[in-house]
């Protein structure tokens, strides 16, 4: 059976065909949709996006038949707001999952992609990141199969759904008790037991340590993880009905633990990253430490790239990609500059918020590059559109270009960070980034010294490394004024909304 994409509501080029699409319970012909979220994967360190190191040769090759979004942004700089926006189509100041360990405001818990995609789809979700699991638990009534964190791991950790009716609180309590040491004795016993157990697992491919997700007992191998995902997808594909699956994998998140073939592959390769002045809000890492961490991260990225390549080749061989949209993105980025490594920061520079978005479209054999800014809330409406589902008016994203979206040079992408603010009150301490075309305005509010209220402005076209702050330049006065007005207006609206609830 050959069907045009227009059938799926995407408004795509009519010469791209969808083979063997699935028939839903209600008799509709629908494609499968797979979302692979790679935690903490910054677009800035991927060679497919122009990074000088060859970190993603497989994605480069595969990208020749993908839709590639070059200015795609996360809506937050860590998992909770980033994944929440992707899954709800709402901005962080609307869904209010802004804190480390935070969750989506109760009134928006039903505003999730699993609910809106409808019952025509079999819905499966998996996350190796505990904080994303907390969000998925909120959506669990709308998910047909919510896989445990340890699904593709080597051992079953202590965190489980023992308290079915109170799993969110019980799990949070268990995390505090067992992993954060709030229970002095239980955490000690748990640590000794699981760390000893992990030590007994053969790990010849990982000379230093096995990759692990959020907790010390959530160990896995890269091959095991990706093979497990491939098997799960093939299993889902055996059914006649279409499926929507969300895989949120931990790599390349810290700790960076590539296997032995990738370990150290970029050490002493001569690459010198641009050295940037330490930021007042940084954690004070030295440049040599930043470079060292970057080397490890890049090696881990190369390992992830290989496994994604394997995964896609399996799906290609088995014919799954003929009727499946495969979306690769991230929840946030990672940075190794200005005295900060990682993403636990108040900073919103490009490396920590600009993320990859590559979409493999069934039947498509050519590469398409999109240069207009987009963000992860756009995935919500785009996926619903592909699934032929209604897009709720409350959705705050746009359709992506190539899937019915239209170019809008006036569109702004806002990312924010407010982990130290209350989710119930107007933000007291936050950083906002607003990107419009080639320009980017960063606003710091509530921090120390001048960062109590401070702006930075960059021309990303001329200065992609964000080194020359042009906030005080007369030339940009008008655009800065417009961007500030837009940001403050949106913030006021969000604050009013929170004040009235």
């Amino acid at each position: 059976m050959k069907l045009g994409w227009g059938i799926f509501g995407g408004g795509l080029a009519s010469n791209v065909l969808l083979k063997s699409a699935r028939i839903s319970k209600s008799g509709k012909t629908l494609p499968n949709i797979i979302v692979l979220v790679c935690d903490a994967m910054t677009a800035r360190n991927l060679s497919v996006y122009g990074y000088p190191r060859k970190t993603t040769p497989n994605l480069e090759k595969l990208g020749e038949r993908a839709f590639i979004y070059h200015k795609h942004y996360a809506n937050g700089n860590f998992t909770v707001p980033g994944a929440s926006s992707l899954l709800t189509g709402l901005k962080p100041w609307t869904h209010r999952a802004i804190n480390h360990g935070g969750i989506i405001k109760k009134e928006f818990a039903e505003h999730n992609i699993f609910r809106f995609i409808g019952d025509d789809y079999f819905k499966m979700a998996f996350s190796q990141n505990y904080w994303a699991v907390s969000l998925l638990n909120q959506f669990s009534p709308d998910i047909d199969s919510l896989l445990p964190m340890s699904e593709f791991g080597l051992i079953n950790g202590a965190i489980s759904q023992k308290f079915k009716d109170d799993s969110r609180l019980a799990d949070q309590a268990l995390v505090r008790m067992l992993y954060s040491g709030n229970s002095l004795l239980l955490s000690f016993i748990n640590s000794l037991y699981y760390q000893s157990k992990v030590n007994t697992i053969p790990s010849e491919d990982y000379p230093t340590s096995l990759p692990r997700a959020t907790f010390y007992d959530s160990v896995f191998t890269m091959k095991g993880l990706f093979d497990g995902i491939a098997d799960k997808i093939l299993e889902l594909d055996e059914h006649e009905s279409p499926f929507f699956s969300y895989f949120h994998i931990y790599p390349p998140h810290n700790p960076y633990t590539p296997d032995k073939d990738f370990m150290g592959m970029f050490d002493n390769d001569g690459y010198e990253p641009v050295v940037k002045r330490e930021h007042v809000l940084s954690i004070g890492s030295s440049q040599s430490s930043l470079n060292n961490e970057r080397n490890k991260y890049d090696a881990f990225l190369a390992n992830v790239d290989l496994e994604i390549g394997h995964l896609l080749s399996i799906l290609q061989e088995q014919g799954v990609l003929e009727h499946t949209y495969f979306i690769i993105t991230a929840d946030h980025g990672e940075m190794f500059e200005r005295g900060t490594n990682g993403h636990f920061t108040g900073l919103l520079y490009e490396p920590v918020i600009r993320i990859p978005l590559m979409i493999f479209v069934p039947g498509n054999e050519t590469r398409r590059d999109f240069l207009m800014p987009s963000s992860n809330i756009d995935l919500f409406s785009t996926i619903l559109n592909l699934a032929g589902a209604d897009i709720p008016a409350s959705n705050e994203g746009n359709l992506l270009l190539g899937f019915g979206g239209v170019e809008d040079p006036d569109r702004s992408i806002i990312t924010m960070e407010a982990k130290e603010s209350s989710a119930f009150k107007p933000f007291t301490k936050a950083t906002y980034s607003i990107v419009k075309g080639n320009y980017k305005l960063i606003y710091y509010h509530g921090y120390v010294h001048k960062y109590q209220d401070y702006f930075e402005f960059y021309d990303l076209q001329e200065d992609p490394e964000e080194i020359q702050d042009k906030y005080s330049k007369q030339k940009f006065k008008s655009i800065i004024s417009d961007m500030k007005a837009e940001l403050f207006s949106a913030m006021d609206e969000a604050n009013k909304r929170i004040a009235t609830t």
Partner: protein
Amino acid sequence: MALLKRFPKRDQTISVYAVGVAILFSWAIITTFNVVINQWGLYLDITEIFGLFAYIMAGAFVESLLLIASLLLFGFILPQKLFLDKFVLRGTILTITFLGSIMYLYAQTTTFEVLANINTWGIFFAICTVILLLLGEVSQFVARVVETMADRCIVFLYIYLPASFISYIIIFVRNLG
């Protein structure tokens, strides 16, 4: 009856248990308050915060039972003169040094590094225990201070055990579905 002689008297057991309860519950409450101020207060409502406290108090109660059960087992296994004859003094010292050394370990590192630091912890625990046990043997004053402290800790049982009971009720209600 011969078997029962291998266990300490009830009031001795309660004194030593009270020391464990005082340390375990106080630690759980203080560290959890820290989380409430820095994290939970930002995104959880008051009923959820109480719910989380309930789980943590329930956990502390389980810990206290584990601890006293281990000490009773020691008393049962070890020669009577080595442990059981001075159960309050030695049980209290063991409780303090064992839990105190874990606190020390957590002050130096995270739970993620427990196994990697187990030797350092073990040495610290052993030295502290030996020193305190020797002091308890040679100094009547130290022995009296330790035993008096264990006795005074009983007041914590009147606070923490009812709190545990309430916590279990809260957990039960939250899981009624």
